[in-house]
């Protein structure tokens, strides 16, 4: 379904819309408070954007450098062209080691690749261990937000879900009680896991190590207990040097949740004795994006979710109205690059207000890219009537006589049309009055009073 259709479904429950909007605005305000304490925040964004630009311009070299150093450290490096290859590689590692129970910490890449379903189809138990992710997994839903996967759920709903799935006593939506129950449940899963999957926030080319950021310590719990650690990363996650890490760690958590830093920034360099450490490096359409100069900056993204929190469209229509693994403004520019047909309504789900661009810690020109996607999508996907209308309107705008004629007909139409008709017939009129038509236009007044 298109964004407007899904948005209209979400908008039907205004209480819920207001609650969702407020919850995310609260996060945006926390972000504001945090970034305003950092001296040189704008310079930090600039530096981060420059590092990312450098990475993207030299990606081939940095990836090979990372691979070389990772192998030296004893890490097994795998390359996946697309989601299918990625899933096959992960399954193969698990099968070769007879692993049946898998714990996962948060990774948008594995969501993008549909890994959970793929592994479950092969008889492997996959448990998401990030609390929000676990909640949506239990509910059999995808994440609705890239940092706050269960932000669309109220405490009471989570309570009911835990009661249903785990047979525990209800806690009246008491967050602390529910978290304790989730801990008990997850402990059991951690203890029996044969393998742990994590995402990668930053992979460091110069030393072959990588960093995973979590707030719950679940990545560490999983990787420390299981004998196999598989880390999945998109090709754009590279940073050249260790000294660049601080720039991104300072930006990431502040932009995401308003914390100075994530509770855990876990560094992985080599496997513990007797264990395996794998890194799967995935392209899945990224190199295509890299080849499009007007859209390549979207690969700067560090998945902080700030553009989702600030976007009034996201806040008031929810993550599911995008029907995309990455929703919100960033998803709306990434989506069409992956499947233009499927995501063709997303670049239009924006007023181009530009808040996403200003909030972005790595300076992606999100709203400009939305505009650019519109220029590609409309001529291709627009109905013939829309295309004709655009051509005709273009002609009219270029010709003052036609323009006057159209304006006169237009306002004349509005002047005589009964209000009751416009109220119900037009999309504008369903919630708004049309402007009153004055006796004379400015131009008529000007000619009469200033030219004669």
């Amino acid at each position, binding site marked *: 379904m298109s964004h407007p259709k899904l948005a209209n479904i979400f908008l039907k429950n205004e209480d819920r819309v207001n609650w969702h909007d407020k919850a995310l605005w609260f996060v945006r305000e926390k972000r504001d408070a945090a970034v305003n304490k950092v001296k040189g925040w704008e310079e930090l964004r600039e530096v981060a954007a420059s590092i990312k630009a450098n990475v993207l311009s030299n990606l081939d070299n940095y990836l090979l450098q990372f691979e070389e150093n990772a192998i030296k450290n004893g890490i097994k490096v795998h390359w996946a062209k697309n989601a299918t290859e990625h899933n096959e590689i992960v399954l193969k590692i698990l099968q070769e080691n007879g692993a049946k129970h898998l714990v996962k910490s948060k990774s948008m890449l594995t969501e993008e690749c549909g890994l959970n379903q793929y592994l479950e189809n092969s008889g492997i138990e996959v448990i998401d261990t990030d609390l929000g992710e676990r909640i949506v997994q239990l509910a059999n839903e995808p994440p609705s937000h890239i940092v706050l996967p269960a932000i669309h759920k109220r405490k009471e709903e989570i309570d009911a879900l835990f009661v249903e799935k785990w047979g525990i006593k209800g806690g009246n939506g008491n967050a602390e009680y529910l978290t304790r129950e989730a801990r008990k449940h997850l402990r059991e899963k951690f203890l029996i896991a044969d393998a742990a999957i994590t995402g990668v926030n930053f992979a460091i080319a110069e030393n072959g190590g990588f960093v995973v950021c979590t707030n719950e310590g679940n990545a560490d719990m999983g990787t420390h207990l299981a004998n196999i650690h598989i880390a999945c990363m998109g090709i754009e996650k590279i940073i050249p040097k260790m000294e660049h890490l601080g720039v991104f760690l300072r930006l990431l958590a502040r932009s995401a949740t308003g914390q100075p830093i994530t509770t855990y920034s876990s560094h992985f360099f080599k496997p513990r004795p007797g264990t395996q450490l794998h890194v799967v490096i995935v392209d899945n359409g990224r190199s295509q994006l890299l080849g499009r100069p007007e859209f390549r900056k979207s690969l700067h993204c560090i998945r902080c979710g700030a553009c989702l929190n600030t976007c009034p469209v996201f806040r008031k229509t929810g993550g599911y109205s995008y029907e995309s693994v990455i929703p919100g403004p960033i998803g709306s520019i990434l989506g069409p690059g992956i499947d233009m047909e499927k995501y063709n309504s997303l670049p239009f789900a924006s007023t181009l207000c530009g808040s996403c661009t*200003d909030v972005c810690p790595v300076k992606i020109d999100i709203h400009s890219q939305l505009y650019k996607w519109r220029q590609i999508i409309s001529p291709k996907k627009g109905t013939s009537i829309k295309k004709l209308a655009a051509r005709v309107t273009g002609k009219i705008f270029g010709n003052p006589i036609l323009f006057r004629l159209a304006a006169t007909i237009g306002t004349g139409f509005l002047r005589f049309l009964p209000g009751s008709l416009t109220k119900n017939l037009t999309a504008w009129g369903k919630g708004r009055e049309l402007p009153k038509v004055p006796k004379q236009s400015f131009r008529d007044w000007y000619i009469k009073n200033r030219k004669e």
Partner: protein
Amino acid sequence: MKVGLFLPCYIDQFYPKVGMDTLQLLERLGLEVVYPTNQTCCGQPIANAGFENNSVKAAFHFAEQFQEFDYVVSPSGSCVYHVKNHYDITPDSKAIEKVRGNTYELCDFLVNILKITDVGAIFNHKVGLLQSCHGLRGLRLGKSSEQVADDYSVCTDLLRRVIGIELLNLSRGDECCGFGGTFSITEAPLSVKMGSDRINDHLKNGVEVITATDMSCLMHMEGIIRRRKLPIRIEHIASILNSTTS
């Protein structure tokens, strides 16, 4: 200094008073102002809908109409943003280059070109400023709430000097009102929700008059206000700045 007055089509057709106020205000400040009567539209509506290529004629026509002026001034941040930022699609032309450089939004022109903040206006009302996004984040008429920098706003610089005005703070100072051009039609229920949330913010903070640099945002707000018969009204910033009687 010869100034060309550019009015967005909806101001010409629906809000002629905003055009008159802009004209009178500029004249009151001693400028020679001409409204080229053959002007049409900057082309933004079709370009934002994704048909930029069809807007080239509009761009050329705009340049042709306004190339003779020292400055082009418009009571719309959105249209000016379009001229300045999206006229890059046309082949190189001196006229296009000139208008991209010398077209200004009204408040920007007053504060940054004329260096005037006190325009001698009187307006005895409690006012809330709706930050039109293209002016704020596109033309940088003020600091957006996302940026970390010293606070500034050409609109508040001007409004603060108006005698009798009480400029009120809002809970969400620069959240989008949801107009967004064709967005107001293609995503109509969302657009209305965004608009009514903005109006509620103004109401909650005691605002009597909502003002903005863009009449398109205000037209959208007014539509909701009138439909719901809310105790608040709209006034373009040009009309406040041109108000000289209490």
